[in-house]
C-alpha cells in the first residue's frame, strides 16, 4: 500500500497542476460568487412559461426551486470538469515522455518498480485519483458557494431562487461520484492511447496526439466524403457527456428552459445518472482496448533504450 501511495504521490510532485488547478478553480468559484453573485440578475428577469413571459422570481414554485437548486449544484461542476480534462490530457501526454526527455527514466528504472506498475500508477492517477479528488473538492466548493450565495440573497427579492435542499444536494453528489467512476471506464481507452503516444513518440507528443486523427478525418472526407472517423471520435470523446444530458450545448438548455422542459427534466439528478452506460457494450470494448494500449505502453517503456 505504501508502495502504491508513493508511486501516486510522485505524480503529484512532478505535475503540480493536477492538484493546484482544482483548488484554484474552487477558490475562484467561491470568490466570484462572493463578489458578483446575484448582481447580474436584473430585477425584471423573466422566464418563458408556455410561451408567456412571466416574472422570474414569481415563477419559482417550491417544485421549481428544487430543480433550480439541482441545476445549480450540478452546474458548479462544469468549470472543474473543463479544467481537469484539459489538465489530464497534457498530464497523460507528458507522463512517459518527460522522463525520457530529461533522462530521469534511468533513475526511476534503477529502483525496484516494474514498467507495468509505473504505467498502471499513471493511468490510475489520471482515471481515478484526480477525478475523485476533483469530485471531493467540488462537493466542498458547492457547499461554500451555496452558503455565500444564500447569504448574499438573504433579505432580497431573489432569496427564493436558492433554497437549500439536503436531499437534492446529496443526490447530485452521489450521481457525480458514480459518474466519475463510469467516466473512468468510458475514457480509459483515451487515457491508454495518450499514454502509448507518451511512451512512444520521440518528440512532439502533442502533435502525435492531435494530427493523426485530424489527418484521418480530412483524408476520409476528401476520399469518401464521409465522416466515420469524426463521428467515432465524437462518440468516444463526447459520449459520456451525452449520456449525462450535458451534450453539445448545455447553455442552450439552461437558457431556453421552458416549463415543459422543467417538467420533462423530472428529477434533475436522474439525468445525471450515467450508470446505464455500464450496460453499453461500447464501454467494455473501450476498456478492452485500453488494456491493450496500456500493455503496449509498458512494452515500449521496457524495451526502448534511446536515453
Amino acid at each position: 500500500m505504501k508502495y502504491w501511495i508513493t508511486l501516486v504521490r510522485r505524480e503529484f510532485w512532478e505535475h503540480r497542476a493536477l492538484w493546484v488547478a482544482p483548488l484554484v478553480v474552487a477558490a475562484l468559484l467561491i470568490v466570484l460568487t462572493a463578489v458578483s453573485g446575484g448582481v447580474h440578475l436584473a430585477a425584471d428577469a423573466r422566464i418563458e412559461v408556455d410561451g408567456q413571459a412571466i416574472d422570474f422570481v414569481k415563477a419559482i414554485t417550491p417544485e421549481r426551486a428544487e430543480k433550480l437548486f439541482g441545476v445549480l449544484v450540478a452546474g458548479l461542476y462544469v468549470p472543474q470538469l473543463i479544467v481537469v480534462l484539459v489538465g489530464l490530457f497534457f498530464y497523460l501526454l507528458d507522463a512517459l515522455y518527460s522522463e525520457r526527455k530529461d533522462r530521469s527514466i534511468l533513475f526511476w528504472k534503477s529502483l525496484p518498480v516494474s514498467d507495468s506498475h509505473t504505467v498502471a500508477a499513471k493511468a490510475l492517477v489520471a482515471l481515478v485519483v484526480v477525478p475523485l479528488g476533483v469530485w471531493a473538492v467540488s462537493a466542498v466548493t458547492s457547499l461554500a458557494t451555496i452558503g455565500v450565495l444564500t447569504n448574499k440573497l438573504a433579505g432580497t427579492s431573489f432569496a427564493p431562487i436558492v433554497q437549500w435542499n439536503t436531499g437534492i444536494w446529496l443526490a447530485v453528489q452521489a450521481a457525480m461520484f458514480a459518474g466519475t467512476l463510469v467516466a473512468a471506464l468510458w475514457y480509459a481507452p483515451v487515457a491508454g492511447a495518450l499514454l502509448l503516444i507518451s511512451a512512444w513518440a520521440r518528440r512532439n507528443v502533442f502533435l502525435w496526439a492531435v494530427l493523426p486523427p485530424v489527418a484521418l478525418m480530412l483524408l476520409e472526407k476528401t476520399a469518401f466524403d464521409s465522416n466515420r472517423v469524426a463521428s467515432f471520435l465524437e462518440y468516444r470523446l463526447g459520449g459520456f457527456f451525452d449520456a449525462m444530458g450535458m451534450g453539445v450545448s448545455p447553455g442552450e438548455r439552461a437558457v431556453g428552459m421552458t416549463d415543459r422542459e422543467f417538467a420533462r427534466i423530472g428529477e434533475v439528478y436522474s439525468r445525471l445518472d450515467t450508470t446505464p452506460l455500464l450496460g453499453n457494450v461500447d464501454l467494455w470494448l473501450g476498456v478492452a482496448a485500453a488494456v491493450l494500449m496500456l500493455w503496449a505502453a509498458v512494452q515500449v517503456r521496457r524495451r526502448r533504450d534511446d536515453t
Partner: protein
Amino acid sequence: MTTRVIEAHGLSKSYGAHGALDGLDFRVDSGRIVGLIGPNGSGKTTALKAILGLTPYEGELRVLGLDPFKQRDALMRDVCFIADVAVLPKWLRVAQALDYVEGVHPRFRRETAEAFLGKTDIRVQSRVRELSKGMVTQLHLALILAIDARLLVLDEPTLGLDLLFRRAFYDSLLNDYFDHERTIIVTTHQVEEIENLLTDVMFINHGKVVLDSPVENIGERFLQLVTTPDRAPAARALGPLHEREVFGRIGMVFEGRSADELRAFGEVRAPSLSDLFIARIQGGKSS
C-alpha cells in the same frame, strides 16, 4: 564467501547493422571492484544496460541468478546504479527523493541517507535544479549508499565534476559502502583516478573483451620499458604490444616478458592502466 554475481556467455546486441556487443564472455564474483574500460562506442555502456535490464540482448546473462531484462524490478532490489550525474529529475526535492526511495525500496535506510546528507551543504527542501552538479551527485550517492545492495553499477559517475568532488565521491564509496560482500562495476574515462581502488580490470573494444584480469596479475603479465631511440630497435625485436615516443624517449609495453630480459634496454616498470589501455586498444600501431 565468494559468489558469482554476473555471468555472461555470448552476450550480443546490435543496433541495426551496427554490432554493439559481439559475443561477450565474462564473470564477476562478489567482493570485486571491476573497472570496465573502453573507448567511446566500444559497447561498455551497452554491456552495463544489459546487466541492468535496460535493454534486450542475445546470449546468456545472469545477474545475481536473475535474467535482468525479464526480472528487472526484482533485480533492482539488490542492484543499484548511477547512470551519470544528469539523471535525477530537476523538479524533485531532496525530501521527495528520500520519500520516494523509502516508499519503493525495501532495503533503503533513510537515516543513513540523512546522515550522509547532513555532512553536505544540501538542504532537504531544495529542488535538484537548485543544486550544483557536484551536489546532485552527492544526493544520488546518499540515496545509493543507504540501500543495502549487493551490486553497484556506476557509469561515468563523476562526469563533469571537479577534482575535489571526484576524490570525495570515491572516498565515500570505499569507506562508507564497500565491503567484501559487495561488488562494484565502474566505467570512467578518468582511469588514473580509480586505478588504485580496482581489484579487476576489463577492457572492452568493438564489442569484445580484449583484457580481463585481476589487477594484481597485471604487473606479472605486462611491463613497460622506457628506452632511448638508439636502443629501441633491439627492444622492438622482443615484440612490444605498443610503443610511443614522449620527449625523445620511447615507451614500450610488453606482454609475457620478464623484467630481467627488458632491463638491458632501459628502465622497467609496471604499466599504468592508461598505458595498458592504449597498448591494448591501439595494438601494435605506433602513435
